[in-house]
């Protein structure tokens, strides 16, 4: 079964086409990168898939079900591009993760203990055990990204959407972040859909790449798809030479 199936998706805002007839599908367990210049509609595409932006035409199925299906939410994890929240919110990392576990009013003691252990193991997975009692507002960009990954996978999702998750994080932090995501992909069979501006990241980690510029320009293996012609058509002439440096880097 396809983890994600998008057909003829069109998104319009103020009589302007943000996305036109986008069609693609993604198999379970794949890592797929979405690339494109600023304003190409990458974030809009992810938000439309997640039901955060309304679409005027087309269909989106996640594991065969339309978004908005109550059971689906537990299968989907999302790390947004810029997390907007009040930095003075007196909320600890542990509390944030506890809130994400589905609500239970009268939680028996043994269940509460299970929940605590689950959150402890999640923090271990993302290498953030020492951040458990830290306030969310006091975290650095890299620390916050790791916690947002932990939050996104707290309910054991099957598909993870990452919208430029490593932007604003230093190079070492980016490496750690991508390694973590790839480990989750390998160990948990998590399908990963990653928006990235960094073609090195796409070459290194993605099984497939979707090139977007309001329309779907290409869809396939990075080595086959990211040709000079495609890069020029997506990013313009200036980026044409970049592709060679990526190949050379490999």
């Amino acid at each position, binding site marked *: 079964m396809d983890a994600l199936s998008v057909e003829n998706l069109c998104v319009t805002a103020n009589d302007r086409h943000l996305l036109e007839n986008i069609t693609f599908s993604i198999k379970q367990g794949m890592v797929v990168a979405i690339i494109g210049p600023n304003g190409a509609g990458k974030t809009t595409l992810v938000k439309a898939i997640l039901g955060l932006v309304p679409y005027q035409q087309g269909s989106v199925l996640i594991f065969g079900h339309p978004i908005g299906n109550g059971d689906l939410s537990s299968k989907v994890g999302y790390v947004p591009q810029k997390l907007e929240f009040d930095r003075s919110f007196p909320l*600890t990392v542990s509390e*944030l993760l506890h809130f994400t576990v589905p*609500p239970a009013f009268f939680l028996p003691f043994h269940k509460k203990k299970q929940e605590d252990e689950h959150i402890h193991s999640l923090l271990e997975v993302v290498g953030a055990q020492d951040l458990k009692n830290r306030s969310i507002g006091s975290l650095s960009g890299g620390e916050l990204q790791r916690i947002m990954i932990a939050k996104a996978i707290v309910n054991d999702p099957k598909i993870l959407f990452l919208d430029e998750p490593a932007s604003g994080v230093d190079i070492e932090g980016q490496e750690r972040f991508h390694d973590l995501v790839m480990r989750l992909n390998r160990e948990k069979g998590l399908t990963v859909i990653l928006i990235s501006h960094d073609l090195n990241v796409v070459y290194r980690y993605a099984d497939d790449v979707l090139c977007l510029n309001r329309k779907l320009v290409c869809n396939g293996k990075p080595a086959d798809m990211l040709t000079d012609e495609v890069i020029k058509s997506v990013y313009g002439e200036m980026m044409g030479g970049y592709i060679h440096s990526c190949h050379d880097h490999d």
Partner: protein
Amino acid sequence: MISEFMAYPFIQRAFIASVMVGIICPFVGNFVVLRKMSFFSDAISHSAFAGIAVGALLGIDLSLSSIVMAVIISFIIAYLSERTSLSHDTIIGVAFSGAIASGMLIMGMMKGYRADLYSYLFGDILAISRADLFIILSVGVLTVVTMLAFLKSFLQITFNRELAQVEGINVRFFEYLLFFIIAIVVTVSLKIIGIILVTSLIIVPAAAAKNVAANMRQLFSYSSVFGVISGIVGLAGSVYLDTASGPTIVLVSIGIFIVTLLKSRTV
């Protein structure tokens, strides 16, 4: 002197009311402060004023008419914020002015001076009846139980609306529920503290708690403690100094806010 006064049933009722409102208002106020909705709760209290005027004009129960009007206006604000490109601030500003103007217009149309209507403007904690206490208690219990039952959902939405939606929370339903709860709590607190100052009792103890709380557990505990201290000390102070109870309670809560602000700056 206070102990002598405590022999009077109306003073006992006033203290019980101030403790109850001191717990309920800041409990809801935490969400108002975290979501930066202070102006919203002000608009709701002034909608209740319009409701009171309409109730007096039609000869129906003033508490009922104020609750209905506050809920209607809060839902209109929520609906317009959702469906139009107008800013939340603008919508609240229009609703706020509209409610005040309507209330004043209707009161002006009524013949004679209605002291009972104007008592809603400033509140009268010493006039609280046993029936009022029962209403405050019922609303308080329902509010706290409802919010605790859905605490995770309310907090998720407060932290980040989009993430909450992706995680399967019915954001729209819980936002309307929160607006409904704020409207009810504001309205039942009017008799005690008055339309003009009720927002202070919702906002100030919660804001003071936010200054010093390190986590959510502390935020909820401190805000209720600060609310109760403001109620008891403010009421006792007003009895001792022979001042108006509502403003005295609010000034005590502002004193607590200043202390917590200074403490947060020194940490």
